[in-house]
């Protein structure tokens, strides 16, 4: 009896209060400012299919690792087949010789070289990573394109565009910076007529900078191909590059 009265009192007390129930989905509450909500795959209204292509980038980027991407058969990675290969070759840079890639792939099948080592080998063969080579690797190994592009764009070593015959690496380590590495790069930029990181139009030189070569006592230093130069000054650098440009017949710009 007493319990019933108590319950009635609670009911009566709440009766004149404002209703807290929200008639979802007609009514919607404002979400708290820090709410992140739940994940949902966006459906493409045109095709009615999910837009997600299972590239796994969200999975690998999530700081708290709450995303797991499960592939369904529909979006499983392509298997090598002649028609697909032909198509991909046509679409990418046609005319590039893929023979040089064969040893790299053989190595993968025989020794199970990792993706990074495989890309390093491919870059050794071509000087950079041609699009067609990346497609070929993806098709032959079943590693997704997004994963290969993800890796190759993450590491500084990989280049996705062709480089010059000679790569000029100017060291920008701490000791070299303090000793004036910036002036060296500027002198080279001016002599070559290209910005840092770029290649001359005649494809003779690529100007690039590296973090540290470990030759700090010779700072500032640079490496052109196999040759190394230490204790540089802008003036000395200009002389070296002018001589080299004359030697290989390179043009400014």
């Amino acid at each position, binding site marked *: 009896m007493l319990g019933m009265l108590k319950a009635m009192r609670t009911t009566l007390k709440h009766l004149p209060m404002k209703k807290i129930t929200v008639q979802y989905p007609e009514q919607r509450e404002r979400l708290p400012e820090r709410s992140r909500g739940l994940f949902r795959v966006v459906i493409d209204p045109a095709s009615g299919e999910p837009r997600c292509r299972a590239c796994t980038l969200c999975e690998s980027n999530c700081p708290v690792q709450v995303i797991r991407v499960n592939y369904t058969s529909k979006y499983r990675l392509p298997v090598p087949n002649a028609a697909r290969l032909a198509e991909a070759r046509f679409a990418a840079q046609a005319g590039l010789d893929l023979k040089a890639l064969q040893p790299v792939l053989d190595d993968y099948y025989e020794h199970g070289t990792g993706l990074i080592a495989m890309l390093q080998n491919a870059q050794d063969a071509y000087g950079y990573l041609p699009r067609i080579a990346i497609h070929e690797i993806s098709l032959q190994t079943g590693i997704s394109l997004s994963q290969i592009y993800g890796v190759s764009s993450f590491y500084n070593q990989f280049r996705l565009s062709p480089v010059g015959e000679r790569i000029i690496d100017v060291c920008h380590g701490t000791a070299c910076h303090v000793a004036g590495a910036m002036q060296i790069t*500027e002198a080279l930029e001016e002599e070559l007529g290209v910005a840092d990181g770029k290649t001359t139009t005649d494809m003779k030189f690529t100007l690039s900078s590296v973090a540290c070569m470990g030759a700090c006592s010779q700072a500032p230093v640079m490496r052109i191909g196999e040759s190394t130069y230490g204790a540089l000054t802008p003036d000395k650098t200009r002389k070296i590059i002018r001589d080299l440009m004359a030697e290989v017949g390179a043009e400014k710009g």
Partner: protein
Amino acid sequence: MTDDTTKNDGTQVNTATDTESRNVTVAERPDGGYRVTVCAGTACVFAGSLAVFDAFVQEVEQAGLGDSVEVSIIGCHGLCSMSPVVVLSDDTLYGHLRPADVAKVVEGHLKGGEPVEKFLYKDAQTGERIRDWHEIGFYKAQTRIALRDVGVIDPESIEAYLARGGYDAARLALTEKTPEWIIEHITDSGIRGRGGAGFPTGVKWKFANQSKSDEKYLICNADEGDPGAFMDCSILEGDPHTVIEGMIIGSYAIGAHEGYVYVRAEYPLAVKRLTMAVADAEARGLLGDDIFGTGWAFNVHLKLGAGAFVCGEETALIASIEGKRGMPRTRPPFPAVSGLWGKPTNINNVETLANVPWIIMHGAEAYAALGVEHCRGTKAFSLAGKLVNGGLAEVPMGSTLRHVIFDVGGGIKGGKKFKAVQLGGPSGGCIPASLLDTPVDYESLAATGAIVGSGGMVVVDDETCMVDLARFFLDFTQKESCGKCIPCRLGTKRMLETLDRIIAGDGREGDIELLQELGGYIIDGSLCALGGTAPNPVLTTIKYFRDEYEAHINERRCPAGKCKSLITYYIDAEACTGCTLCAKKCPTNCIAGEKKQLHVIDVANCIKCDTCRQVCKFDAVKVRSGVEQAVAGVASGAEG
């Protein structure tokens, strides 16, 4: 072939207890002939040591000394500021040799027996020439353990390493000791990870040992990405076998059969020598399925890094070996529980592993006797920047910075004033002159805001702008941020923009506080040590050199005369002799003046490339900090 070499060398194969002979540097030949060793460390190679080596071979042959003189190469000898360095078996050290000078040394010293004064080390203070390298202050002030054989043996020859007692520690460990004994021994020695974090190695090994799994991995972290640090590079180039030996002992202690060395591709020489060393060790059964007949199997694989600084972080390194983007992940699980391919993994730094064989051979007590409480043993540093003696140095933990910079490093080059020392690369900080008596150990340095880090020490004089230096490091970390944590990815970018603004002369009131506030958020909000330490260079320079920031922001001038937007070049009317050299070298032809007349710089066209100041023989080209002020200076110079 191998036996012959050993005999020819005249070096005795040392027994395990023969520690005395370790103090011998380059063994003298019994017939009284010389052995010439040419340093082939990275710095010396840059200075042309390989050409010097060729010249020696040729000159020795021509002088008819082919039978009594041997020429070989060594890894980094340490005194890189003298490079290329050549060391003779009578302990003479020659530096700054050019191939053309070799004939003089061969004629004078190897034939005549008299040292050639001109190429000996010159003491900056007394001006005295020192012949014996042991007597040079740089070497006298050091205690070498990890670097014990670096610069002493031929790194490309396993015989040379074996002749110095190499692989004895691994033999002792595998044949006579238990993994528990090794772990206890390493724990007692008090050694802490030399990669920067300073986690006790013994404890790490214990965790890995206790993890139950069918497979375990041992990784040697040789991804020395810090700009300005080259100790690991020098160890791998100068003594690769000691690292392999350390790995064998470690593998036995934790129970791993597969090992990886993750080495930077930017160190081609280290990669080459390490590859050779692994192949040599395999050929001799020191690596493989049955090491020393104990049935212990251990194989070492090389993995080349692809140029990502963040891969020095252990979970990012593991991701990179697995062929993924090198992004750190949350811990726990720690790699000791779930690491490479989900198996228990132990990761040690190169220098840590190089210490292990020494500790096994000489005992934990001998190692613990060096250093201070909580920080035992020694630490290798690479000394660079504006020092008299730059190079590779190893000192006991707890030595003061003053000792390292002034006793080992010989003080500041050109008699300039010490301004600051940058420790620990992009994760570290700048320490001013007032804190020079700080002992070098993990805790004391952390208290100043800097860190020991991997051991890069770059000394700067008063010609270096601290704002520019801080910007340099932040630019580096900003580019290297993997992008996973937003505070690190965007925060460093914002900080960099603020610094760029200050350097360009557009600094605002409150920028310093903004930098400090952002820095705090980045430290708190980042997963790994890259973000957690990225603001350190900025925060420490603000802490100790706040006046420079204020000068940039409030007075629009750069006190060190480095930041281009805040300085102006002018020619001193008193000093200019009118030699026309600067006008000839000026890339924009903005210097006008007749021969023997005062030259004037056209400020409007000057690109501030600094060439004129560097080529002037009379120090007549000066830099004035502040822009408006300098324009007036040039005008008055023109009138005068």
